[in-house]
């Protein structure tokens, strides 16, 4: 048994109103707006701005989604569990720098780095995927 709501007379009235809007000529719409004491251009601009806001919001959402995806990917690229001993962490950083000489410029003061700095550097290198395969050596 179908349960289609019965169409009310008011629906026919609004159908006619909507059809008249869809089929209205530009002159008709301008007359609508003029008779209401409004500006055709101002209304058009307002609607355009409404759409522009949606465009901007959607782009921001897209950007946030991309950023979240990047962060997730970074996490997935961090399989290395850092050594628990400070000496072992320092050795791992040395090994990473030896394997990736392009990074040595950023760690010129390698010898004077605190354990906290070494740990932070290792986390950054892990995010960049530069520690992959080094944990086994």
């Amino acid at each position, binding site marked *: 048994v179908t349960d289609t*709501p019965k169409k009310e007379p*008011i629906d026919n009235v609004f159908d006619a109103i*909507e059809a008249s809007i869809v089929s209205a000529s530009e002159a008709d719409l301008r007359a609508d*707006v003029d008779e209401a004491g409004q500006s055709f251009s101002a209304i058009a601009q307002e*609607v355009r701005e409404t759409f522009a806001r949606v465009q901007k919001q959607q782009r921001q959402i897209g950007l946030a989604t991309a950023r979240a995806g990047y962060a997730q990917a970074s996490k997935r690229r961090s399989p290395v569990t850092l050594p628990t001993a400070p000496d072992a962490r320092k050795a791992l950083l040395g090994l990473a720098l030896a394997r990736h000489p392009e990074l040595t410029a950023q760690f010129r003061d390698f010898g004077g780095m605190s354990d906290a700095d070494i740990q932070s550097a290792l986390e950054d290198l892990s995010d960049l995927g530069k520690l992959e395969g080094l944990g086994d050596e």
Partner: protein
Amino acid sequence: MASEKAVVTTATREEIDAAIAALTETDLVRLQRFAMARIVRIGVAADGRDYRELLSESYRRVLGSRSWNKAIAFVDHLSGTIRSISSHWAEEFKRELDAGRNLVSGDRDTRTDPATVRSAASPAADAERVVVARDLLDYVKRLFAEDRLARDIIAGWEAELDGPAIREIVGVEQHVFDSKVRAIRRRLIDEGLKAGSKKGSTS
């Protein structure tokens, strides 16, 4: 094969953005008027949302789940989306009424005149929704009580008569008919939106 066809006709995000940018002033005004008419039509079911929100939600939907088949004019696709979303709002609202939502004690906009609010606020049933529809029709008739031609045109629409049939019965020239339709449209939208904003617009 069906998917190949979809690839050919479904617009990309860039094409949709370009279509939005290409809308003329007339398109934009038409969309605004159409969205306003839909808000007035669904009345209390707009639930505090105005035509700008309807336009925004329609565009969001076109960018998302309601893809644009380029075989259809973009402005027609957007109008169809406006119609679909406002109908969805009305259905959603009906479900809430059926679930016993109280509109009078609720903190949202109630959109319409006190008589309609009372009708909509009572425990909902099909019979009560008919009352709401009749209240809206009464409201429209009251708006044009002093205008005989407007009353005749509205009565013709109620009876599902088209423009030529109404003109023949009423005996008016095309330009007189068109002018009166425009007046009905403008008054119905303006007064309908004013009635809806009495408890405060959301924008």
